[in-house]
């Protein structure tokens, strides 16, 4: 199962990770190792345990079984300093939106140990590159969804991290911004940064990931490059996804939905 370039440095290693909430198993033995410069597309149906894995790696959930190593350190015994080299875009866009973009970025940068001047200089230009410079001193609560997403991406790369966790980073972005972010990921990875990327948009995952990990029912059911996945299964990533997760009823369900929609009109 272990694919591609094993000679490289390991950035992230998960061994037999299990976790249950209130007796309900969420992860039942997850194993994988991630190497420097990889873009991992981490995919799976809703409730497969993707977010839980990411949260465990970020240290948001403790009390799990198994071993999680980041930058060669077991995070269960490590202090928090490993987080300084991680950037994170949260799935639900959690942000202190009473603050202005400037205040928020300054705060996050300082948390990562940057100086105020460095943050300000960098943040302004990043905002400019993402086309939201004029909102630098506006409150985040007044931002559109796309603007907020751009801000979250900026806040995740501001401190030049080695490892990035992107949870649906493209949600709410327009087509042009999507291209920027995709290219950004490719270039960062080429430089040797590692990107751990989860999304439900299969086309994007297919195109930008150089390795895909498919999680279902709390365990890894496929792991490899898109080409490797295609050797065993036919079609696009979307079709492979459907096949591997045992789902092939979309046409039937859709037509049932259509017929339900037509019901119940009185007037």
């Amino acid at each position: 199962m272990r694919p591609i370039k094993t000679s490289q440095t390991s950035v992230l290693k998960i061994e037999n990770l299990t976790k249950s909430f209130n007796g309900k198993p969420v992860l039942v033995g997850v194993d994988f190792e991630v190497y420097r410069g990889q873009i991992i597309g981490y995919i799976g149906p809703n409730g497969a345990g993707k977010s839980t894995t990411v949260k465990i790696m970020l240290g948001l959930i403790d009390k799990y079984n198994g071993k999680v190593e980041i930058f060669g350190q077991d995070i269960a015994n490590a202090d928090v300093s490993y987080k300084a080299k991680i950037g994170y875009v949260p799935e639900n866009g959690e942000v202190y939106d009473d603050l202005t973009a400037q205040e928020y970025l300054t705060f996050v940068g300082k948390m990562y140990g940057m100086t105020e001047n460095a943050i300000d200089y960098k943040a302004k230009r990043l905002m400019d590159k993402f086309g939201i410079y004029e909102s630098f001193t506006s409150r985040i609560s007044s931002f559109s969804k796309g603007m907020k997403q751009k801000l979250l991406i900026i806040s995740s790369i501001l401190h030049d991290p080695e490892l990035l966790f992107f949870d649906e980073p493209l949600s709410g972005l327009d087509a042009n911004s999507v291209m920027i972010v995709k290219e950004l990921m490719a270039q960062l990875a080429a430089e040797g940064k590692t990107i751990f990327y989860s999304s439900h948009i299969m086309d994007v995952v297919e195109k930008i990931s150089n390795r895909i990990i498919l999680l279902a029912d709390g365990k890894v059911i496929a792991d490899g490059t898109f080409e490797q996945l295609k050797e065993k299964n036919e079609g696009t990533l979307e079709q492979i996804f459907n096949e591997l997760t045992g789902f092939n009823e979309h046409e039937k369900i859709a037509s049932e939905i259509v017929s339900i929609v037509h019901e119940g009109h009185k007037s």
Partner: protein
Amino acid sequence: MMNAISLKILDKFSRLFHLLGINYITMRQILAIKLTMDQRRVPTIFQDVKQKENSNAFLKSLLLYALYGLVLIPFLIMGDNYLFQMSIVFGMVMFILMTSMIADFSTVLLDVRDKAILNTKPVDQKTISAAKMIHVVIYMTQLTGAFILIPLAVSLFVKGITFSLLLLVEIIFVALFIIVLTALIYMLILRYFDGERLKDLINYVQIFLSVSIIVGYQFIAHSFQFVDYVVSFDWQWWHVLIPPIWFAAPFEWLLLGNQEWYIMLFTALAALIPIGSIFVYIKFIPSFERNLQKMMQTSGSTKIRKHRWEQTMAKLICRTNHEKTLFQFAYKMISQEREFKLKVYPSLGFSIIMPFILLFNVIQTDSNAPYAYLAIYFCNLMIPNVIHMLKFSSKYKGSWIYGVLPIANRKSIYRATLKAFIVKLYLPIILLICTIFLTIFSDISLLPDMIAIILVGIWYIVICYRLINNQHYPFSQPFSFAQNTNTAMMIVTMFVIGGFAFVHFLVSLTSFGVYFYIIVLFISNWISWKKVFS
């Protein structure tokens, strides 16, 4: 400005934090951000580019607390029956601190964004917890300071330095005790429940606490008997359960030399319980933070509730289908939106209890008091508060739905909402109170008076709607820091209700006046509900 001062003062203690293994610089940064956000918890709908800091709202609420503080002064200076006086004083202090802690600061303790934003950064849990705690302490210090400053100065002049020093020290203890107590209660709940159920439960605890403080207050008053203007205290075991009495005891002991065993016991409790609870709190912080994660999870499927009752009521009192649907929508919002319940339900508890408190106080002085039923008018005091709150929702952005729906008569949205308020909250409460009053007096001839009171209430609902929120959609504004402080309005509405009660009294002096009054009220109701919403 005030926040800058708070942080400067905190800087003096930076060594202490280092000693405790807390990263002071990081903690200070978190605090600075949190304090800035607090300042902005003001109406935030159309805020735009580069606006000025508006710390006015918080300052104003501090001024209001200072005003409330004046109430303490008579009890501080009236005599030297300290056990009684100081119990009242500490009862008030605890009431104010606890309610504001619950209403305004639960969000700080339970902010789940902290997890995703702070814990993903290289910051250790200890520092985050410390920042949280200090944040609450700063807020409580400002609030307590505003509340107690004037009474403290007065007591210094009237009672001397020992008294005021003792007061100051005890107030600090009380404040710490309240903070820790609230936190501990949340911890306990978080341990056993998760997801949505947990949020509901916290909601009910908040409501329960607020109401029980009001009831507890009555217990203090009834722990003392007024005999010939001499207040005497009779030891009962349950006095141990009333914290304000603990804190009053040291005054009795140190200033009056009262060395009864129970005074010593209370004093010991006043000193040991707050300190002890802090240790318990610190011990449980890690598990608290872990359990906080549960807030973000949703527990499995919930059972589908039947809502026949709402449907029947909707059919009965709404004419169009649109209105029926809007009625059911508002009914659900009123019974399910947590923030709304949190802001409104305590005051409902208050309006249930108030008439009885009044009744018992009246009966104690004059056992046959014929007009005691007028106390029910106090129940109508909830109306302006609830109507005011119907504008707000924590998910106010969802109100775009009103705009896109094909509703011809926009006013029917509010009519349906007010009807839902009547059915869901007003009628159950007032009917309950009326039934209890009828049972106590066992006098069926009061029935017409009760009907008149209810009709006044329903009429008053339209009047309040007209006065307070004519133009907004319901559930369409964000809750904010300052909206509770609509004191002027509350006083005006109190007078209006008093006016109604007085008219009722005048009317009932004549033999069939009440029936006439009912007819007049009925017609005014009919006209007002028709006119206002057409």
